């Protein structure tokens, strides 16, 4: 299993979530974050904005689905046809173990259909 963490523009979040849902990866966790990148924020006149609001999307997928998920996020999160500064970053890190709390079962890479960050449903 791998964890894919994508930092995307807030206005692109819905497009990414929809693309992931259509691609068959519904399980996602979203957190609002602020940050800056290589461009050191945005300078407008005299003021530099270096805490730009972004959304952090976390999803855990099987290793073999990694490239497809990254491609899906990349296409949906890009602004314009060729992309521009501030579209975000995607980080991939290994996940050693995954447990589902409701069943208490450890999910194995090839057994689980699709394990996501948040198992939603029920009464929250």
């Amino acid at each position: 299993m791998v964890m894919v963490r994508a930092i995307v523009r807030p206005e692109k979040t819905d497009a990414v979530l929809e693309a992931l849902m259509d691609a068959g990866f519904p399980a996602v966790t979203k957190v609002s974050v602020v940050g800056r990148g290589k461009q050191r924020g945005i300078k407008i006149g005299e003021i530099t904005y270096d805490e730009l609001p972004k959304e952090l999307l976390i999803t855990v997928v099987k290793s073999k689905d990694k490239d497809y998920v990254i491609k899906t996020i990349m296409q949906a999160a890009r602004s314009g046809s060729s992309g521009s500064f501030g579209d975000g970053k995607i980080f991939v890190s290994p996940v050693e173990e995954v447990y589902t709390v409701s069943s208490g079962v450890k999910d194995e890479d090839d057994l689980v259909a699709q394990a996501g960050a948040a198992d939603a449903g029920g009464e929250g």
Partner: protein
Amino acid sequence: MKEVMAIIRINMINKTKKALADAGIPSFMARECLGRGKGVVDFSVLRGAEKGYEEAISQLGQTQRLIPKRWLTIVVPDKLVRRTVETIISANQTGKAGDGKIFVLPIAEVYRVRTGEAGDRALDEA
């Protein structure tokens, strides 16, 4: 060292905090987050569709709704991973979908900012 990342129900946070402290794992980080899993069920849409509202029926299958959750990050030495995972599961298990997920990730290095200690020593309780 391992990072135990758990996504749990928001109303379970106090119970989980207590259970972890009792198990000897008092330090952790918690955040609010939104999420959805593989079995997203929007009950208001379901109930509406049951009663035959056209609007609700058209929304069936469009599950864009994200559910508020708590996101816990706990960094523990290798030998405490099992205990941490079992504590979180036993505190949060209701048996229904939506109880959450636990991920165990490798951590390369840990430092304590106050003293500059590195590795497992930085995780030891003083």
